[in-house]
């Protein structure tokens, strides 16, 4: 009888073991679609494993759902990863070992929770029998999630101005060298590195163009689990409300333009709200509540620099409410634990940022950033900032739903001392205002991508809170109704430029194409550029540092040479700062001063996108101030490269790719 009761858990364990046996050995060629799908699920399971370990220590006797465990487990990757990346010990092997340990922990958790797994299996069986129509609807919703998951795995579009020149090379550099120091890179400066670590985990068993898999697959799964698993004092939100709100999320136009944080923002902001709700559900030892909060906050902060203010504002509000209610010095202990642990987990990433860009916290501390290229508008004031806030809200967020949801949130009377929803709303509003304030040289469409995560999570959080609030149930029902109507309105509203059918047509095409790709080991299907970049790199002696301005530097071997990616010339450079507009002699002297002898670059007339001189000439009169400001720097640097090439020996030249040796005159 005991064995029979353990069958559901045994099936889970068997699935993990079989999947690991399929994906982990790198000797047998696998179909890319299957391999990456299985591997991504293993990474998710590994997160759950690490999260189960956290739950074991902080909430041994509580039921912590899969979504929270997964988010906490991802937080462990950030916490542990931070300590490993500083001494350059977070390469391919170390990352694989971290995932494997997580899988072992997941198996241990399945054994430990075998009764709960059995109970869940029985529950689903009963549910299917009692509510067959709702169950069918749930299955349909799960099919939609699976479809989105598969689209994320199969989407091979990476953009040539962020991903190809910076984000993908960061991932490869991290895997090959255990760290990623890029003093010239503005994109490196703009995030502490959490997203790069997560993308690199998936990259262990995927091709570079599949770098959307973490954000659009694993994080979509995490969001779903966080929504479905939400309980507030044992109460769950109505299924139909969950289906509507998830429907809204999936039908929103996908405005992400690169592999930087998008859905991961939604996932970890929602996890932040969920963990704040969990922490307030009962009083525990201060460190026990503080640890998961710190793990989720640290993860969120490392994903994008502009996510930083949200946890800060949210924690300040949450603990402020708690202090107001309790009015005792004792209530200060937990905030100190939370702040201390958050700092402890984030500090290694800040140290990494210092190693890379001489700043612990950009933009407060400029480091290698060129302040003359500030992202703020030169002509600014209160009304202009208010206008940009409103414009960003309307154009850059799911504003129809958010508008309703703000009303719904205002209707709610939260019983919990920490008021997690209000605290999170304050965090999200503070983060929104801070992002707009820091990017006044940009426009609503671009800023909208940065605030999407926090605002979408706010919608989800409000529906969950309204669906489970016990205090003043009439108000809660009204709030839930308003929020659900808001989500329905958002679903009904379709932007002309983003019709939903196009997204799904495109997605099915991508799945079909990737599933037709034959089994392969890494590199056997590499494009011709891979070999071209290999020949380029072979023209430079192994071990010698070189700087690059290339379209696809992710084809380079970062283990062979130390490489600095110049990325977007002008924004960032190591001290004393790269000179601009002063002639090529000074630039040459600068490179020699910082120990760069070789420079590899793509000629502007051959650049496939980002380094086309003619394109940047047109951008000189762009409507966006930040691009008008940047364009002269890039043009100047392209002209400088040409001038330096005229004076020095060319080691390599093929299809517009050039390597010059600054120590050898022509």
């Amino acid at each position: 009888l005991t064995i029979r009761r353990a069958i559901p858990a045994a099936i889970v364990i068997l699935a993990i073991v079989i999947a690991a046996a399929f994906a982990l050995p790198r000797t047998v060629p696998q179909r890319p679609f299957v391999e990456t799908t299985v591997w991504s699920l293993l990474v998710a399971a590994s997160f759950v494993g690490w999260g189960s370990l956290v739950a074991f220590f902080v909430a041994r006797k509580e039921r912590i759902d899969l979504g929270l465990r997964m988010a906490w487990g991802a937080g462990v990757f950030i916490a542990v990863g931070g300590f490993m990346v500083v001494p350059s010990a977070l390469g391919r092997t170390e990352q694989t070992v971290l995932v494997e340990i997580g899988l072992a922990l997941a198996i241990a958790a399945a054994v430990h929770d075998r009764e709960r797994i059995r109970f869940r299996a029985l529950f689903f069986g009963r549910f299917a029998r009692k509510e067959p129509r709702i169950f069918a609807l749930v299955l349909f919703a799960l099919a939609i999630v699976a479809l989105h998951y598969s689209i994320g795995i199969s989407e091979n579009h990476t953009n040539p101005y962020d991903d190809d020149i910076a984000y993908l090379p960061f991932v490869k550099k991290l895997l090959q060298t255990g760290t990623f120091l890029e003093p010239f890179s503005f994109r490196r400066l703009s995030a502490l590195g959490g997203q790069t670590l997560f993308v690199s985990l998936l990259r262990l068993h995927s091709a570079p163009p599949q770098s959307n898999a973490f954000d659009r697959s694993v994080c979509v799964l995490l969001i779903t689990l966080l929504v479905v698993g939400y309980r507030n004092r044992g109460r769950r939100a109505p299924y139909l409300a969950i289906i509507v709100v998830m429907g809204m999320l999936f039908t929103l136009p996908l405005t992400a333009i690169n592999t930087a944080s998008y859905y991961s923002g939604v996932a970890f902001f929602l996890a932040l709200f969920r963990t704040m709700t969990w922490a307030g559900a009962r009083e525990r030892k201060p460190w026990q509540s503080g640890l998961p909060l710190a793990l989720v906050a640290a993860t969120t902060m490392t994903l994008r620099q502009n996510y930083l203010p949200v946890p800060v504002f949210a924690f300040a509000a949450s603990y402020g409410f708690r202090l107001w209610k309790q009015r005792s010095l004792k209530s200060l202990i937990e905030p100190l634990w939370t702040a201390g642990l958050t700092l402890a987990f984030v500090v290694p990433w800040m140290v990494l940022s210092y190693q890379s860009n001489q700043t612990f916290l950009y933009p407060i501390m400029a480091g290698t950033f060129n302040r003359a290229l500030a992202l703020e508008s030169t002509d600014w004031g209160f009304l202009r900032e208010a206008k940009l806030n409103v414009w960003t809200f309307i154009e850059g967020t799911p504003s129809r739903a958010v508008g309703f949801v703000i009303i719904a949130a205002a209707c709610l009377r939260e019983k919990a001392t920490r008021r997690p929803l209000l605290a999170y709303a304050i965090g999200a509003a503070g983060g929104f205002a801070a992002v707009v304030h820091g990017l006044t040289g940009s426009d609503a469409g671009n800023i909208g991508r940065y605030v999407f995560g926090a605002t979408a999570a706010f919608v989800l959080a409000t529906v969950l809170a309204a669906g489970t609030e016990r205090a003043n149930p009439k108000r809660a029902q009204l709030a839930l109704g308003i929020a659900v109507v808001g989500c329905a309105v958002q679903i009904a509203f379709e932007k002309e430029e983003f019709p939903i059918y196009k997204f799904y047509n495109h997605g099915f095409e991508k799945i079909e194409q990737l599933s037709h790709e034959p089994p392969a080991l890494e590199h056997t299907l590499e494009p011709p550029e891979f070999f071209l970049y290999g020949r380029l790199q072979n023209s430079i002696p192994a071990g010698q540092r070189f700087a690059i301005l290339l379209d696809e530097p992710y084809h380079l071997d970062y283990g062979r040479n130390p490489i600095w990616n110049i990325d977007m010339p002008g924004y960032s450079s190591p001290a004393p700062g790269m000179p601009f507009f002063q002639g090529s002699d000074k630039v040459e002297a600068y490179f020699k001063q910082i120990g760069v002898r070789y420079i590899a670059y793509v000629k502007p007339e051959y650049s496939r996108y980002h380094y086309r001189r003619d394109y940047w000439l047109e951008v000189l009169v762009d409507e966006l101030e930040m691009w008008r400001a940047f364009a002269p720097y890039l043009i100047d640097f392209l002209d400088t490269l040409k001038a330096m090439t005229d004076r020095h020996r060319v080691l390599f030249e093929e299809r517009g790719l050039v390597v010059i040796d600054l120590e050898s005159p022509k």
Partner: protein
Amino acid sequence: LAFASLMLAPTALLACKKHQSEEMKQESILRDELKAKYLGEVDASRAVGVSSRWDVNFEDGFGKILYDPKEDFRNHAFRWMGPNSHMRIRRHGDKRMAIKVSGWIHLKMVRTFPVLTVFINGQPIGFTEPITDKTDGHYVLTAQIDDVGLFQGQEWADLNLVLNGAQYHWLDPPLLNIAIVYKFEYDEVP
């Protein structure tokens, strides 16, 4: 009310006025000089005349920069403008400033001979004669800022180009396609 206040407080706190440092201002000026040089080298200087720059910003009421023919930024650059088009101009210390706006009115569309007036912070400082078919609808509006008091002590001022003769379609005036500006000059008076 408390909820709304908490939601709006961060914006109110952050939205304080920013001033560009002198060093950054000089860098902006240098960048604009280079912009003119680079575009001049490829015979695309006309775009400079209708682009925002360190001391001029095109705002509401103007369309984006377009080119005729449209494929190449080296061609004739222009912006559509509406009946009340807004710009921001920056003072050059206490220097007197000259403004010269060149453009064209689609007279067959407006069916009148309109007048274009330029305002600084709501004060009229210059206007054209009625724009007629004698010039094929082309106009040149010149004005001078002799009194920096018009800036009211601020670094930037509002400049409005008001075209009498088109009084409808207030939301997206450039779509009217009734008037264009193809050069905006803003220079210190020698």
